[in-house]
């Protein structure tokens, strides 16, 4: 199974590996959601939607429907 951003738990971090899905708006890439960048799940609203992320120092919130298309590797500490 592919691991996506939606699999992250609060406080966990991952490395973005793919954002080429057509469901991902270009704006997200422009804000720094790029392959190779580190992403941390800072906080989630009820039902884990929306999700509050820290991508390489940029803090932003996206909906779960977008998060499930962003493929990542979870960093295990």
């Amino acid at each position, binding site marked *: 199974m592919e691991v996506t951003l939606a699999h992250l738990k609060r406080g966990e971090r991952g490395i973005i590996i793919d*954002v*080429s899905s*057509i469901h991902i*708006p*270009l*704006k*997200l*890439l*422009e*804000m*720094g959601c*790029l*392959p190779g960048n580190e992403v941390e799940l*800072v*906080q*989630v*609203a*009820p*039902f884990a*939607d*929306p999700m*509050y992320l820290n991508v*390489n*120092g*940029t*803090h*932003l*919130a*996206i*909906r779960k429907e*977008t998060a499930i298309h962003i493929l990542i590797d979870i960093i295990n500490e």
Partner: protein
Amino acid sequence: MSKQINVALIGNPNTGKTSVFNALTGLNQKVGNYPGITVEKKEGICKLPRGVKAHIIDLPGTYSLNASSLDENVVIELLLNKNDKDFPDVAVVVSDVENLKRNLLLFTQIKDLEIPVILVINMADRMIRKGISLDIDYLEQQLNTKIALVSTRKSKGIDELKELISNYKELSVEPCMHASEIDKDYFDGLRKAFPNQLLYKLWLVITQDVNFGKTDRNEIDPVANFKTKSKADLKRLQQKETIKRYQFINDTLKKGQTIDLNTATDLRIKFDRVLTHKVWGYAIFLIILLTIFQAIYDWSSVPMDFIDSAFASLSEWTKNVLPSGAFTNLLAEGIIPGLGGIVIFIPQIAFLFLFISVLEESGYMSRVVFLMDRGMRRFGLSGKSVVPLISGTACAIPAIMATRNIESWKERLITILVTPFTTCSARLPVYLIIISLVIPEGRIFGLGYQALTLMLLYLIGFGAALISAMILNKVLKIKSKTFFVVEMPNYKWPMLKNVALTVLEKTKSFVFGAGKIILAISIVLWFLASYGPGDDFNKAEDIVAKEYASQNLSEEELQQHIASYKLEHSFIGITGRAIEPAIRPLGYDWKIGIAIVSSFAAREVFVGTLATIYSVGNDDEDTIKNRMAGEVNPILGGPLFNFASGISLLLFYAFAMQCMSTLAIVKRETNSWKWPILQLTIMSAFAYIVALIAYQVLT
């Protein structure tokens, strides 16, 4: 006339463009710590060294030149249209030192347009705290530009920026990187097909549709038909372009910027752990709202009472001092009470603006967006709709403009349509005076009944907005792609100066905007109430004297009967009684009817209108409130403003669409008369029905 330099301020949202604009021009445009405060072009003049003048244009924030919402599109339209009178001679890209990497993406795109660019690195005051140091010379060389390190909070670097602007001709117009390398074949083909056009501009025009609607592209129209790639391919290419640009930026910053994470302190995490928490986040939001309502009530009652009695004495004083005559009457009975009806609400309105601006300046607004998004989506709205709904409590007009940063057209349209339900400050005067007349003063759990009623009215407003949004979501068949990305800015101490200026400006424009309408309406009303047609009005003395001849009235009582007989047969009395049958079932008399009708220009004239009508022919000066309390229901006896008619009035004002300016702005934002007309009829009809039911049930 010397030639002015056109300067455009461009940058990511929330980087301080408007703050720089204000520093350059000395103007006071609204600033706030929320991405999307500025949604349209704003202009001002800046004096540069050596007598040169610059024409400065403040623009909405944008993350890139690929627009995905209406406010961002403003920037692209300006930059793509060389014939625009505002087309910049020099672009000033404003960036935030804490987010330099992301901010530079837009910078590299603007560079590709081959216009002179200055890079402002703003918020320099935060560098020490964040452990950031920059090698400015290296960056200037790599980015092929001049850099001004600025802090608008500490007023640093503005003079250097002015100097750079006045020397803009010396700036290099060479791009700092070559984005077209991502697909050599494609771009070579493009260059050959349109040798006279700038390559990057062509690319922007071609890809514009992919993310957003139309741009004005008459200049290079055939380009849009240069279709050698599918939409999906174009999108992939845009992704590649973005990655390429970031590679360049990363390489540049690796040497040009060092961040010492050890000295960086961040309060964000601690605050956000609580403020965006699943439970505490909502609890705190509720407490903040409760505090606001209590404060509006409790803190402003003293100045309000003072203003009310001051205007009553002013009116009396005018009457005593000026020679009696029509002009004195107009002043004392029409204009002064009418203005009093608006000035009295300054304290409350100022408090409301104060709270909203603190919420915006602190960065808390984005957290509310985050907390509310899921809930709002159920109603066909977006988390971003919360901001218009909250700022709608001040005024629907800026609130409707603030919807421009909502990406999905359907969510945006619904937000525009339902925002007028939120309790705007113009409703406040009506609510307050009626609540004070019909709701008792007691307290429960430390909260006054009156404050609770007010809060309930706000909730009714929000409730109506949400429910109608849900209905619209079902009814409107609009397909638009929805996506949602919101930046969460760092918390900042609200800057006292910004908050104070916002409160001052907003209150001023409320008073003067409303003041103008009220002045005009009170003058017209006073004339209509002081003159009338035919014998009934002109021979009122004789008629009344005859009627009461047998009753042996004192002179004073007789005068009162004459005055009220005259009023009833004046032009306004006749009009009022003509509409009376329609409003009697709601529990109102013809005077209230007139006040409601004139409220369709703007709600806040309600109190002023009544004040004017009551003052005409009435000699003893009294406060507006006492006069209203003294009115008697002509048919049933007892006070006219009782619980039933009061509640009915409150509900009518809660739902009715009584604001010309809002209708005009909805027309502008939706580009069609259909929506404002729909709002006007549906909301007002609904208001009438609800008020009718309320009165009939309660009596």
